[in-house]
């Protein structure tokens, strides 16, 4: 379905760097993806690989200094957000593109009633009156499944449970019916029944108003159920980009394979979960070759000396790995060393 729909967001070569005493951290190092109307793009990847920084860069919310968008462009309906003035940007934030932040516990203002925190955006962008905005925010709280919403709206964040705060964040992001929703781990604090309800709500908005969604999550179950396509990130790069079916059926990049392997299985008992040995390279000191090389079971010499590119495969999957190129000498294919 996404093919016929209009392109709304196009990220090209996005780079976000942090300059600190210890050097330059290339948190986001050249990212490309597109998002169409009504489509859901999943972003998954190792903790610290730059998922949140990518999304914060889109809204130009990275802490600066030390952070800075060091290159690339973000085209929203054809206009480049990176070079836009701050005034123009403000009209887009919270209105046309909104974001659910990863940290539900600290992302709400501790001294302002949660209802007001939602109403505020409505008054600003939808020019609603005080009363209408308040009523709408109570309605939003109800929509995200918070019981006694009138009472809860008057409470301050510390009086709400973790999951309630997260739903307040969600209500806030959805209040102005944005065209693009960036959801950074939106359901970590929610139980599965409410999670299902929230995902349903997002889907509903997608079909109704054609909202495009960027769903950042480590919950592969959520990816499987909601996303049309998935970008797998590793150390500031996209290492695999595929449709959801393809990714789960036939993960290509060794990191993606490792990731799917380490899932705890709900229907069987394991003594020890499978992990990917080793750890991510420091963002201050990226290796010259493939960034996954130190942990990769298939590694060859070329992996250590040269960085692979994100290359289109015949089935439309893009993957950043020498294994899928002509350079691969490749007879250790399936088993792998180490």
């Amino acid at each position: 379905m996404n093919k016929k729909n209009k392109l709304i967001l196009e990220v090209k070569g996005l780079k976000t760097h942090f300059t600190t005493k210890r050097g330059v951290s290339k948190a986001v190092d050249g990212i490309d993806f597109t998002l169409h109307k009504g489509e859901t793009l999943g972003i998954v990847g190792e903790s610290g690989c730059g998922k949140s920084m990518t999304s914060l860069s889109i809204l130009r919310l990275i802490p600066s200094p030390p952070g800075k968008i060091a290159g690339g462009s973000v085209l929203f309906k054809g206009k480049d957000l990176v070079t836009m003035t701050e005034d123009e940007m403000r009209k887009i934030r919270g209105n046309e593109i909104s974001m659910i932040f990863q940290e539900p516990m600290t992302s709400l203002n501790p001294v302002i009633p949660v209802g007001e925190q939602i109403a505020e955006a409505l008054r600003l962008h939808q020019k609603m009156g005080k009363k209408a905005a308040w009523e709408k925010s109570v309605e939003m709280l109800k929509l995200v499944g918070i019981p006694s919403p009138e009472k809860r709206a008057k409470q301050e964040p510390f009086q709400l449970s973790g999951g309630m705060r997260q739903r307040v964040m969600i209500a806030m992001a959805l209040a102005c019916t944005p065209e693009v929703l960036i959801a950074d781990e939106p359901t970590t604090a929610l139980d599965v029944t409410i999670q299902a309800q929230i995902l349903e709500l997002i889907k509903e908005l997608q079909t109704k108003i054609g909202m495009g969604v960027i769903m950042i999550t480590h919950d592969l179950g959520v990816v499987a159920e909601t996303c049309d396509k998935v970008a797998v990130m590793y150390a500031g790069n996209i290492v695999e980009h595929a449709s959801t079916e393809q990714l789960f059926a036939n993960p290509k990049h060794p990191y993606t394979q490792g990731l799917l392997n380490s899932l705890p299985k709900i229907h069987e008992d394991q003594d020890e979960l499978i992990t990917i040995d080793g750890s991510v390279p420091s963002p201050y000191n990226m290796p010259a070759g493939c960034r996954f090389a130190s942990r990769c079971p298939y590694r060859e010499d070329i992996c250590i000396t040269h960085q692979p590119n994100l290359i289109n495969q015949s089935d439309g999957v893009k993957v950043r790995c020498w294994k899928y190129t002509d350079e691969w000498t490749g007879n250790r294919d399936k088993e792998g060393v180490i």
Partner: protein
Amino acid sequence: METAEKKIILQVDHLKQYFPVKKDSFFKPKAYVKAVDDISFELYEGETLSIVGESGCGKSTTGRAILRLDEPTDGKVHYMGQDILGLNKKEMRKLRGDLQVIFQDPFASLNPRQTVKQILNEAMAIQEVVDKPKRKDRMLELLGYVGLSAESLDRYPHEFSGGQRQRIGIARALAVDPKLIICDEAVSALDVSIQAQILNLLKNLQKQFKLTFLFISHDLSVVRHISDRVMVMYLGKVVEIAEKKELFDSPLHPYTQALLSSIPVPDPTLKRDRVILKGDVPSPIDPPRGCRFHTRCPFAVEKCKQEEPPLRELVKNHFVSCHIAEDLPV
């Protein structure tokens, strides 16, 4: 299975935690959020008991009340036979080394002006667990456990990603050699490979040092992996408690059944039948009479609206609070 012979490390009796709500008008009676409403359970040494349940059902509140981060309204908590709620500040501080907590978002509890090194150092210094010269090695060991590089020591909390902060919180909790750790959504911000690493670590530590975990999580596959027993809460009450396998294989309470059926599965080809619960989630400010679940329960009978079901041991070590649990379809 042989839990009966095991040593009880924590005993919670009739714990209640009520929070006052702002009144709409002066004349209305004072209302309360009955966040935790008379729950009892015990924790055996070296086991992992998980608490699961709907958002807002009182899981975190239970954890906080045990640690006296909020003073409970009523009830008793015994740690190794000692009445925790009766301890004074000094005694409590000593006990805090034994009882650690890992919060959902540790960023709030990490001092923004301290580097990771200072944070870990301070934790060790307060509880006097490691001699000064050995602390550096211990810190590096801890960081290794949670998959952070040595270079992290000199960085401040805000310079980390969400999952990395979480791991700092975990390292800090482990730094003081605790006996009981309350993990409140401790791994929910982590990607699966790191999550697997940490879960393995927790399990190993548990085997080695007989650690006990009270594990609060929404991720049922994680719960299934890590727990020995599972307790299900609904609106401030315990509705079911059983051995893990028993609970996942034959849940007795209708709420547990609904919960287990909504787990998303990482397989896009599989679209399963969910028991989507009908009706609004009732409010803990004004919980329903009788069985608290009756407003959404597909099987509710007249009795459920009137009488509160007691927690009954229906199968050995499997407790459930439902009037008609034995007659439910499986």
